């Protein structure tokens, strides 16, 4: 710890001398660099770093270098609150964070109390911006985006009337289940079965058999990586062959899913909010830079979200100055086009300061995620009906 402090002090000194005439502008961030969310914290850090390098290479913010004060919350709410307090005391005009919804919710309440804007980069819980508060801005999507964009796409593909839903029995899975139950009838679908399962269930065969006997047009899954792979394999095994199989983000949206499930996952529809192939300017380049920042590891959408959040923070400081109230006013006027997609914070449909993220629908084609919807972001055409 001591060595780290000394090292960072030396780095700080070096930057000070290098840019002796140039002062720095600080931005704070809280994420989980250790603890159970550490994988995602690493993704966030990579996203921040790539954005920071990009901003400083272009000359920084209003002639000053942008500096990131990054605090680790150790995947713990109390530590996150302490970290935020340190950042506020250090005088940052805006804080980005945290990874998980459970930590971000109390963090957003604290930040509103001390009147410093919080820019949420990855947490998806609906209640963070619904109703939200004047000091919380969210760059990434709310969780219902995934289900909404999928059902929109299914409606467009046409000719399908029945669906079954199977999700993991946790906060995310349950919210997908309730969103799907609400939205499917509106899209003209009858829900034939809705189930949840406990994480780590290895044998989905009885459920999949039941679905097979119900013969639905669409099967919708939401689950973590290992279960996603097991599901894809067992779907093939029991011979469940609906017209469309769809995975809602998380486990299905990971490169590990493609590797683990192989050919069994071909033609699955997977909803996510960012994919390297989207038609936003610079997306492919961002992917390359994120991958480099992660030492060759595949970046997830969380890295891209964090990248966009850092760009939005810098942009707000550029326009609003280094006073929290100024930054807050500037954030409300944000209009950015990033490699993650357009960013603007709006108040609509019960959400406050929520970026209306474009929900992407990708399809696994020849072992790759290919963005197929919406048309503004798509690279490829959806393969439908499924070739036999």
């Amino acid at each position, binding site marked *: 710890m001591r060595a780290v402090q000394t090292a960072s002090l030396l780095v700080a000194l070096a930057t000070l001398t290098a840019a002796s005439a140039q002062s720095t502008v600080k931005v704070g961030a809280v994420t989980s660099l250790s603890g159970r969310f550490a994988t995602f914290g690493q993704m966030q850090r990579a996203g921040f770093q790539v954005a920071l390098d990009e901003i400083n290479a272009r000359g920084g913010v209003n002639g000053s270098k942008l500096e990131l004060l990054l605090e680790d919350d150790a995947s713990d709410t109390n530590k996150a609150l302490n970290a935020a307090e340190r950042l506020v005391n250090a005088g940052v005009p805006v804080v980005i964070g945290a990874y998980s919804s459970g930590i971000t919710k109390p963090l957003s309440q604290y930040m509103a109390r001390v009147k410093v804007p919080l820019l949420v980069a990855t947490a998806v819980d609906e209640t963070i911006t619904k109703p939200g508060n004047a000091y919380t801005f969210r760059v990434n999507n709310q969780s219902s985006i995934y289900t909404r964009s999928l059902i929109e796409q299914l409606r467009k593909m046409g000719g399908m009337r029945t669906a079954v839903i199977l999700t993991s029995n946790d906060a995310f899975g349950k919210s997908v289940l309730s969103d799907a139950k609400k939205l499917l009838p509106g899209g003209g679908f009858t829900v034939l079965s809705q189930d949840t399962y406990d994480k780590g269930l290895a044998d989905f065969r009885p459920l999949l058999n039941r679905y097979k006997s119900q013969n639905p047009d669409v099967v919708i899954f939401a689950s973590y990586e*290992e279960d996603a792979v097991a599901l894809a394999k067992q779907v093939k095994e029991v011979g469940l062959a609906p017209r469309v199989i769809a995975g809602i983000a998380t486990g299905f949206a990971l490169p590990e899913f493609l590797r683990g499930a192989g050919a069994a996952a071909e033609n699955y529809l997977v909803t996510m909010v960012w994919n390297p192939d989207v038609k936003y300017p610079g997306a492919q380049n961002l992917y390359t830079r994120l991958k480099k920042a992660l030492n060759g590891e595949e970046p997830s959408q969380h890295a891209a979200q964090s990248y966009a959040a850092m760009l939005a923070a810098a942009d707000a400081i550029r326009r609003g100055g280094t006073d929290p109230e100024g930054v807050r006013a500037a954030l409300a006027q944000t209009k950015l086009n990033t490699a993650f997609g357009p960013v603007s914070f709006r108040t609509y449909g019960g959400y406050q300061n929520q970026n209306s993220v474009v929900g992407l629908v990708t399809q696994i084609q020849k072992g790759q995620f290919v963005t197929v919807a919406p048309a503004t972001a798509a690279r490829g055409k959806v393969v439908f009906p499924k070739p036999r």
Partner: protein
Amino acid sequence: MDQAAVTALLQTLAQGLLTGGLYALIGTGLSLIFGVMRVINFAHGDFLAIGMFITLALFRAFNLDPYLSLLVAAPVGFALGFVIQRFVLARLGDRLSEGSMLATLGIGLIVSNTLLLTFGAQPQNINVPYATNTFQLGGVQVSIPLLIAGLGTALAIAGLNLLLYRTELGRAIRATAQNPLGAELQGVKTTNIQAIVFGLGVAFAAIAGVLLMPLLYAFPTVGENYTTKAFIVTVLGGLGNLPGAIAGGLVLGVVESLGAFYISNNYRDAYGLVAFLLVLLLRPEGLFGRTVKRV
């Protein structure tokens, strides 16, 4: 019932039986150990995890077909079991029942944490081309890896029976199970026999792990669930009763599958436990009773 419902029922039954076969293999190892030395092996599921991770490591390193890993996993399991019995459990002396319970619990913790340190907590799987291969049998889809697992189970159990009833070693094992002191007096080295039996039990768990690997992902604590299953299987069939363990495994697999299909998936583990409680209430000695000859 219409045609689709009948097919779905048959399919669920078939898969339940094949899954039950795997439970039987795991339960047999546990039952064998209990039958011979009255030790309940709480690390049984963790030995299964060892089998899975051996398969995973060999696949990653040499692209070795999962089923060929049996040639490594079974002897490694046997050696591990032999050493554990010889150098840990055998030294507990007369305090065997409580001592062995705690010792096997501790060994299980060591095993799962060693796997955690070596392979990480992330669930990992291997993707072999035939993992999702199936064939049709009168409208019922049968998974080839699951069928191989079932056949492997049958072979392993048949082999064990040959060993127990057709060889000198088997005779010694049965003698040790019936009366350790008497066997010792007849010149049987019971400490060796017990180590061999524990080795066989662990080898069975490791074999089950290998057979599961093409179907499932591995993670360090994957065994926990299977320790419980093995225990249920063993008690269903009657403690220490090998044919009982096989029947118990099949019953558990079918009960779980039918319950998940017709009632709800959420109580899946509960169906086995309910069957377990019913058997204990109605036939405390297990489905096959204690009057049946032990190994």
